[in-house]
């Protein structure tokens, strides 16, 4: 099959799978077999977070520029798209519905407003990116943080999008829809998550991606090789912002209520945690991170003690495994997949035993309950501690730059001629480390 047809078939399969999943997730469920609403709600949130994390990974993980204002760009996209749907698209939608039917009409409108969201966020990214990315150093971090704050201040000042009350529909003197329509179902969220992943993946594998990675590894050297570092950084940042805008548009049309309080620094920080945990420079890593960070607070709500125990046992398990030493293990499980399974099994056994002891023998559960310890309140403390622990022990994140899972992604990791390959198309150097196990974050620059 020619690659063109292959891609087309692939795209079709993805769309079909999404449609099926979406049906299984609708409120009624798939012939009563669907996922409970709460879990499908969490899945949809996870989808939006995947878009945020993968797009942030492009600028932070692959280009090495630290942005901590992703929520700001999300806010731009969310408010821009909701503003359009509430005040301007009603007439057009009626016309399109008459022509194409309701579903297609809504789909066209939704794609238009999402593109508008992307454009607005990209523009904001350009305004923020040009002054701060011209310079070396960490200015982007501060400027993006400041920008996210300014956006909130500006939005709160606009009465037409609800001001501090929040935006759920047309505000009195202006005419428009009474509520933000809930266009975004799992299909749309999943579709855009896939698009984000594919686009970022393709960028990273292209000339541009090589240039971006070379900037991350050594900006001076990249410049010396003739890469216009400012231009590449700005391009990566604008693309990343545009996808954050799309995520915002999806959120606006899923939640149907926008409040500037949802786009505070903490939101940006959550996205950073996702990519740091999963691995900066790993697309599958950031997907994993997004899913875990979406689920974690909800799991903390239901199984607070189990989760804390599980987290606390990670260092203990690592220590014990180190004591056991790899060489003493039987041949079969010494490396690769079997070893990973062994580690997992070891951890599960450790967890089950400790949980049994703590709950059944020491009544820890009841004691914590009696002491009224609210573990949810420590959510952000746990995140921060995870982040520091990760930086101290494994700064490249869980997956580092590896990709797992789908074979097409795995193939992406196989480098053409060993690791020392230099000079992709366009004469762009691949500034990559010489051994896959080496720490990419080590000793690039001391000061």
């Amino acid at each position, binding site marked *: 099959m020619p690659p063109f047809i292959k891609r087309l078939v692939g795209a079709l399969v993805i769309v079909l799978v999404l449609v099926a999943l979406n049906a299984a997730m609708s409120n009624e469920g798939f012939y009563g077999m669907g996922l409970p609403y709460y879990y499908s709600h969490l899945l949809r949130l996870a989808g939006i977070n995947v878009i945020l994390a993968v797009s942030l990974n492009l600028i932070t993980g692959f280009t*090495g520029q*630290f942005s901590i204002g992703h929520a700001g760009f999300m806010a731009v996209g969310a408010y821009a798209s909701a503003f359009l749907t509430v005040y301007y698209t009603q007439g057009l939608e009626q016309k399109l519905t008459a022509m194409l039917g309701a579903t297609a009409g809504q789909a066209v409108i939704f794609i238009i407003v999402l593109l508008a969201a992307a454009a607005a966020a990209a523009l904001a990214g350009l305004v923020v990116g040009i002054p701060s990315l011209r310079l070396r150093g960490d200015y982007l971090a*501060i*400027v993006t943080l400041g920008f996210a704050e300014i956006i909130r201040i500006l939005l*709160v000042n606009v009465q037409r999008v609800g001001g501090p009350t929040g935006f759920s529909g047309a505000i009195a003197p202006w005419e428009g829809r009474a509520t933000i329509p809930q266009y975004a179902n799992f299909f749309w969220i999943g579709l855009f998550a896939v698009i984000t992943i594919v686009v970022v993946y393709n960028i990273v594998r292209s000339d541009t991606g090589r240039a971006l990675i070379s900037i991350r590894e050594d900006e001076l050297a990249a410049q010396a090789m003739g890469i216009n570092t400012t231009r590449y950084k700005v391009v990566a940042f604008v693309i990343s912002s545009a996808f954050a805008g799309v995520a915002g548009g999806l959120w606006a049309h899923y939640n149907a209520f926008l409040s500037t309080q949802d786009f505070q620094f903490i939101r940006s920080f959550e996205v950073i945690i996702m990519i740091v945990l999963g691995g900066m420079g790993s697309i599958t890593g950031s997907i994993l991170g997004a899913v875990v960070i979406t689920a974690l607070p909800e799991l903390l709500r239901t199984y607070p003690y189990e989760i804390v125990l599980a987290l606390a046992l990670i260092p203990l398990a690592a220590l014990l495994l180190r004591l056991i030493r790899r060489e003493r293990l039987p041949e079969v499980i010494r490396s690769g997949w079997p070893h990973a399974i062994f580690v997992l099994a070891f951890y599960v056994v450790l967890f089950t035993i400790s949980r049994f002891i703590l709950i059944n023998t020491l009544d820890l559960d009841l004691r914590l309950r009696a002491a009224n310890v609210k573990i949810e309140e420590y959510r952000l403390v746990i995140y921060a501690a995870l*982040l*520091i622990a990760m930086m*101290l022990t494994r700064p490249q994140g869980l997956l580092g730059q590896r990709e797992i899972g789908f074979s097409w992604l795995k193939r992406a990791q196989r480098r053409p001629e060993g690791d020392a390959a230099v000079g992709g198309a366009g004469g762009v150097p691949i500034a990559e480390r010489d051994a896959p196990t080496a720490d990419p974050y080590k*000793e690039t*620059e001391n000061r």
Partner: protein
Amino acid sequence: MDYFVQQLINGLNIGAIYALIALGYTMVYGILRLINFAHGDVYMVGAFVGLGLAKLLGYTTSIPGYNADTVGHSLWGGLVLVLVGSMIGAAIIGMAIERFAYRPVRKYSRMTTLITAIGVSLLIEYLFVAWYGSAQRSFPALVKNDAIHLFGDVRISMPQLIIFGISILLMILLQWIIYKTKIGTAMRAVSFNLNSAKLMGINTDVVISFTFALGSAMAAAGGVLTAQYNPSIDPLMGIITGLKAFVAAVLGGIGNIPGAVLGGLVIGVAETMVVAYGSDIGLASSYRDAVAFTILILVLLLRPSGLLGSTVQEKV
């Protein structure tokens, strides 16, 4: 005119606090090229340590009314004790942060240290939120809280006078430490070139530690002083103030100590003037927080080295 002078006093007053915090940012950045995100939180911790000390000394917030009136008149000794105590406490915390969080990752890339810094910042903030709750707490008045009439309609309150006096004193002290003492010379050497300084026999770890201690002490002083003027403190008070102080450091020229002071004062005054005159030109007073960041973007566009900084040199 009276109105302008009054607003100028208000602005310089906030600016002095920004300047005190900006000093810590600028010193650490000068030496490690690290934005110490946790610095704003050290300022917060300083205020909380001060609150603890004030309570130990018998200043209480549970008695209604101004404490200085009921507990003791102008107990300057109390102020000095609380101030020095919280500065020492914050210095220890600053050194601990450097030793246990930043030093182990110093050998990694900038990105790793920056993420660590953000992690430390959040850890401090939300540990305090978990322990003390995020609600504001009252800070006792350590000196009598009256105002001095200057001229016309212009008045300056005692806490404002104290902020001016003590911050000027501290800045002179800092200048003396940096230019007249041995450790100050070492600090300048390290900020000039860390590796060469190491080759010259300077114990760079000690110097870095000392820099963190010095910066943290300044921030803590800012925390206690600001709590004298705005007697409410909370675990998240350091976020916005810290950011603005960082902008002040960039505005003055990051790594430049007089620049940090100048930047702080400029931002304080600019902010105040937006509130004072903004409504005349259609700017709501809520744009106050946007001022600092607008200034930051303008500085980065027009003069990235800052007002007093020399041009940034890239070392290979």
